[in-house]
Structures are given as C-alpha cells and as structure tokens.
C-alpha cells in the first residue's frame, strides 16, 4: 500500500509540485508528509533528518545547476563519487528540505499555557479521575504543595479529568493530551520530551501515563541526565488471556537505567517485579498512602448480629462481581450492599444479575467512605488481582472486618490476624466459610479489626506518608527506603 501511495506521490510531484514555486512546494510537501505519518506511521518520524529526501524517477529530476555540475567535475579529480559523467550524475536525486513547523507551533501553544518558567516537580499522569492511582497522585500533590514545591501536573490523555477539583490550587495543570490530540503519538512524545528537557525539573514522576513511559523508554538517557526520574507502579493487570500486562511489564526493564526510584504502595509488587526481572531492591520504595484519619475515630462495635456486608468496586473482570453473585446465592440470609461503578467492558449482564438478586442491594457510588462506613461491620473484597486497594485501607481504619481474596499487595494489610484471607480466591465457598465464621464469632472479629486498625495507625496516617515522602525525596544515596517504611 505504501509503495502505491509513493508512486502516486511521485507522479504528483512530477506533474504538479515541480511546476509551483519552491516555498509553495515545501508547504505542500510538509502537508503530504503529515498525511503520510497518519496513514503510514512506521515510515515516519517527526524529528528524523536534516532533510526529507524524496525518491524520484530520475528522468524527472530537475537539472542540477550548471555551476554545481562544473564544481563537481572539478572535485571529481579528488573524489571518485563526484564524477559528472551522465550516468553517474543521474544517480543524484533532487530533494527539498522539509520545514515541518506544526510541532513547533504546538509547542509554543503549550508554553503559552504553562504559568511558570521553572518547576521543582513535574508529575505526568493520564488524567485525574476516581481510581486508586489517581488518589495516590492527589496525595503526592498534596504533600508537594504543603512542602512549598512548584509542581506541574501534566495530563497526557485527552479524556476529561473528573477530579481536577481535588488537585491543590498551588499545583499548575497542563492538559497536554487535550492540546496535542491532533498529533501522532510519536509527535506527542517528542513534544513531551522537549518540555521535560527545557524545564529540567528536579524530579519527573510518571504515574500510569503511556506517553510518559514511552518518553522514558525512548529518551530516558537525556531526560534522566537533567532530572531525577520516579515512576509509580501498583500492580500488574491481567488481560483476557490471563497474562500479566501493564507498564511494569511493558516498560520497566527498558526504562530502568533512567529511573531513580520505583514507588509502590505495597511490598508484594516489589517482590513480584524483582522476581520477574531480577531488579535490584535498592531502587524500590514503598510509600503507603494515607487514609482519612476521621475514620479512626469511628466507634468499633461488632456486638450486634448485623447480616449486612459491604462490597465496593468497579463492575469489571478485576473486581469479579460475578463471584459476589455466586456467594450471595450460597448465603440467601445475608444482605450484600454494592457500591459499584460500571466503567469498563460489557458488564450489562452482571449488572442485571446484581439487580435481580434479592439479597443484593445496589447503591449510588459514595463520595467519601466515611458517609457509609457507619452502616456496615464487614466488607467483602473479591479482586482477582490488585495492589493494595484504598477501600480496604479505609475499611480497616473505620473498624470494618475485612474478608478478602489473597491477591497482590493486600497481604501487606490483611492477614489471618487482621482479617479473613481467602487463598483459594476463585472459590465462592471459601468466602462463604469466612463470612459464616465472622458472623458467628464477634469476639474474634473484634480482635482482627483491632489488629488491622493498628496497621493503619502505623503505616497509613498522613504523618507516616509525609515521613516516607520526605525520605524518598531527600534520600541520598539511593537504597534504604524499603527498610524504613
């Protein structure tokens, strides 16, 4: 297909472009180059060459100026390849220097909306929405603004960021993705690279941004020579074939030489990545996220015989609402209260099943966990894979008993002494046993709840988070953070 397009282009060049003035010709060629980039991206790079050669049928080459032929003829006595015999001269194709100004103009547009000339910290994220990673970003931004850092938040995806109102007012926001949406991915990467090189912040921190990771992979040598590079990773995702995927799998190894710190919120994922790739422990830092400390003030009371169980999460393959449906069938006398969101994939069927189950009640998503925490004593989590879900941290802080699948980083918080852990986590019957056990033994439940709360007080307060962040940013040399958190 590319060859056909190239043939058409050559004909176009010969019959039309050759007949128009050079300046116009260059504009048309630039336009055609951009079309080529859209249609045939693998044949295109925005920053490749000094010039943009055009392959031509030789007989249509514009004639080489006489003075140049004469000079080549003279120099052929010094250099064999500059022979001006007709057959050799015909090998020299004419080309036009392509002036591609679109990226440069877009770059100027970006500069015009960035308020400051310098930043201490540039955090690159896809967006700010409702997810756990978004919450982590907000905690990082809060810490940085409370500590007087000049921060630029770069949002690389064009999608609407629904939680920008949560970003501290002192943080400047660049909606990069919305500005550059009309450019190709590699052009976007080139723009981001240049912004990072020109601003040269003390720290560049990439969280879940594909463009940010791609910049690190391609331009990490340059970027890391002017800034310290941090990345945040929380867990693998699992694709529909059951394979681990995600930025940790795709980008971490090629980017690793440029990264000063890999930040996670749980120690399990550190070991997962180290085992997978043999990476050194010293570059990892576990920074546990703070929770709403008002939750710690809620009274813990497991003396009543409430049969109401809380389930929170997206209605998707990761959180496995279908497992909840199976559990609810096995426990018809227990009521399950679902605060869920339909956000990915085709899960109309599971939503319908949830609605149809008599002992499952669907609720609107809550804004703050404390608004619903008082209503429940037990929370059930059925994730197939995860980091350390924020909802479990909040639940532990609020004094809820946690029954959860034993996946990802959850074991950092929930063990058999701080909750009920389901090792064989795809079996609904295993959850049923735990639910029955906790409902039958309130005293034991209380013990577990108190243990979990102690973990929260130790690791998930703002004070603990600030201490971890300070150590992270001031640590010199790299390498002792795993032991201090």
């Amino acid at each position, binding site marked *: 297909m590319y060859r056909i397009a190239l043939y058409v282009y050559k004909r176009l060049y010969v019959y039309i472009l050759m007949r128009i003035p050079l300046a116009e010709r260059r504009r048309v060629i630039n336009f055609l180059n951009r079309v080529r980039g859209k249609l045939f991206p693998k044949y295109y790079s925005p920053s490749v060459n000094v010039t943009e050669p055009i392959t031509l049928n030789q007989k249509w080459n514009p004639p080489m100026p006489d003075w140049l032929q004469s000079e080549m003829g003279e120099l052929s006595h*010094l250099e064999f390849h500059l022979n001006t015999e007709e057959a050799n001269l015909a090998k020299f194709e004419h080309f036009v220097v392509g002036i591609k100004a679109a990226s440069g103009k877009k770059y100027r547009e970006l500069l015009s909306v960035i308020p400051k000339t310098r930043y201490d910290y540039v955090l690159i994220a896809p967006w700010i929405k409702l997810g756990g990673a978004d919450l982590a970003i907000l905690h990082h931004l809060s810490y940085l603004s409370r500590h007087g850092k000049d921060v630029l938040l770069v949002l690389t995806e064009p999608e609407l960021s629904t939680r920008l109102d949560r970003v501290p007012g002192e943080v400047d926001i660049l909606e990069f993705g919305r500005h550059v949406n009309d450019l190709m991915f590699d052009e976007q990467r080139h723009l981001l690279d240049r912004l990072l090189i020109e601003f040269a912040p003390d720290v560049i921190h990439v969280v879940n941004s594909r463009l940010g990771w791609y910049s690190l992979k391609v331009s990490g*040598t340059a970027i890391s020579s002017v800034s310290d590079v941090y990345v945040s990773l929380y867990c693998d995702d699992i694709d529909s074939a059951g394979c681990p995927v995600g930025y940790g799998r795709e980008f971490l190894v090629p980017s690793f030489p440029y990264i000063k710190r890999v930040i996670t919120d749980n120690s399990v994922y550190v070991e997962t990545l180290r085992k997978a790739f043999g990476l050194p422990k010293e570059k990892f830092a576990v920074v546990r996220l703070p929770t709403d400390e008002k939750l710690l003030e809620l009274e813990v009371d497991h003396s009543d015989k409430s049969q109401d169980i809380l389930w929170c999460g997206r209605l998707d393959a990761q959180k496995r609402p279908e497992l909840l449906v199976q559990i609810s069938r096995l426990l018809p006398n227990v009521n399950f209260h679902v605060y869920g969101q339909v956000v990915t994939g085709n899960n109309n069927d599971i939503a319908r099943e949830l609605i149809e189950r008599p002992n499952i009640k669907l609720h609107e998503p809550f804004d703050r966990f404390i608004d619903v925490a008082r209503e429940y004593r037990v929370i059930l989590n059925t994730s197939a894979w995860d980091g350390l879900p924020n909802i479990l941290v909040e639940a532990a802080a609020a004094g809820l008993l946690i029954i959860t699948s034993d996946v990802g980083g959850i074991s950092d918080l929930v063990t058999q002494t701080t909750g009920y852990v389901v090792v064989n986590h795809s079996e609904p019957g295993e959850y049923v046993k735990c639910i029955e056990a906790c409902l039958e033994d309130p005293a034991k439940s209380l013990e577990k709840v108190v243990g979990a709360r102690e973990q929260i007080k130790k690791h998930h307060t703002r004070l603990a988070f600030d201490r971890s962040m300070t150590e992270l940013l001031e640590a010199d040399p790299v390498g002792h953070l795993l032991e201090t958190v």
Partner: protein
Amino acid sequence: MISAVTTFHREGYLAQITLNSIERCRDYCEQRGLKVELVFVLDRADALTNKLVREHSCVKAGDVLIEASNGDLGLSRNLGISKAGGEFIAILDGDDLYSESWLFDSVEFIKARGNHIICHPEMVVNFGMYNSYCQQVDQESEEFDVDGLFATNFWTAWVVAHRDVFQQVEYAKSDHLTSGFGHEDWHWNCETIHRGYIHKLVPETCGFYRRKTVSLLSEQLSKRVHIRKTSLFAKSEK
C-alpha cells in the same frame, strides 16, 4: 584572515581527500588576497589520520594542529576556535569536500552584509551511501519558519561566521552516549537564531557530504538523541 577549524577523528585515507579539498579552497582564497589559517583538531584520531593530517602539503607554518581527547565534536570545535587567530571562522568536517569558493565568498558575503550573518553553502550534495542534492534554507526566505527547527535541523554543520559569533555562542557538549544529548550544530543554530544572528546561503557555493553506512549523525538519529536545552525553545519570563 579566515581560520578553517576542521575536526578529524578516524577518517583514515578519507582525510586525505578532504585535505586536498581544503587546500584547493585555501589556494582560491590566497590567490584573492584572503589569508587562511588551518586549525586542525585531532580528537582521538587514529595513527593513520594523524599522519595524513600532519604530513599534508596544505599544512603550512603558522597553522595550528591540536591533539585532543575530547571524544566530543562540540568541545573539539570550541577548542579549535579558541586557538584560531582569524577574524572569520569556518567550521569544516574531516571527511567532506567543499566548493572552491566557499570560504572566500562567505567572507565577502559577511563583509557586505555585516557580522550578524552566518553563512551556509547554498547547496548540499550527498554522496557515498546515497546520492542526492538540495538547496539549504535561507532564513530570510519566504518559506523559512523558525518553529520548524523544533523538529528538524535545516543546515549542515559547515558554517562561516565572524569570530564574535562563536565567542557569543559556543558549541554545546555532544556526549550523546552518556547524556543523550547531541546534534551540537542544530543546537548552535537554535542559539544563534535566538540571539538575532541571521543564517544565509552564499550563492553558488556547495558542501559535499560523505554519507556513510555508520556515521555520527546516523547513530544519533537512530538513538533518538536530543539537542540540549536551548533558549530558542525555553519558556521566557513575561
């Protein structure tokens, strides 16, 4: 006087061809009363290149030969410029060829237009691995757009300018393997434009660019090397 600052590395016998071309340029200048000083920087040059440069007939008393171990084109050019005595400086590469009148016509061009002018050969002929030719871009032409320098370098590294230009704007370090930064000529072009210098084409002059399977440029392009931070693309204070 014009100082022709030329960097050599491991060109081997190709250096001899370049030296022959430089000698031709020198003769052309001196026949017209323009004195030429050759400043050759041998940056980690191999023994053959070193020998060919030292023994070439173009090298005369008063010329400058510098042995350096920068391993860096930008720093080597700066070093050569710092040792050059000419009012005008030409930057040449050790494996290319130049049209006979390139140095002389450039000096005449600057004398006519002013010391804010940076001269480039009008044409570039690529030869070797591939053969092609083009006209370079004139900053005062209609099609010139400074924002195009964001994605592409418009000019080859061969320039002639008044020595003040090089004293105002040095070449940046170009250690792409360790820092990821290179294309020191592209960076220099951006910096000089930002400071108000004008890049012009000298009519009927040409550089002949030897294209090799592996070159510094091709290596830098394949590794996605960047130019260093430049005032041309910096966020300015309002």
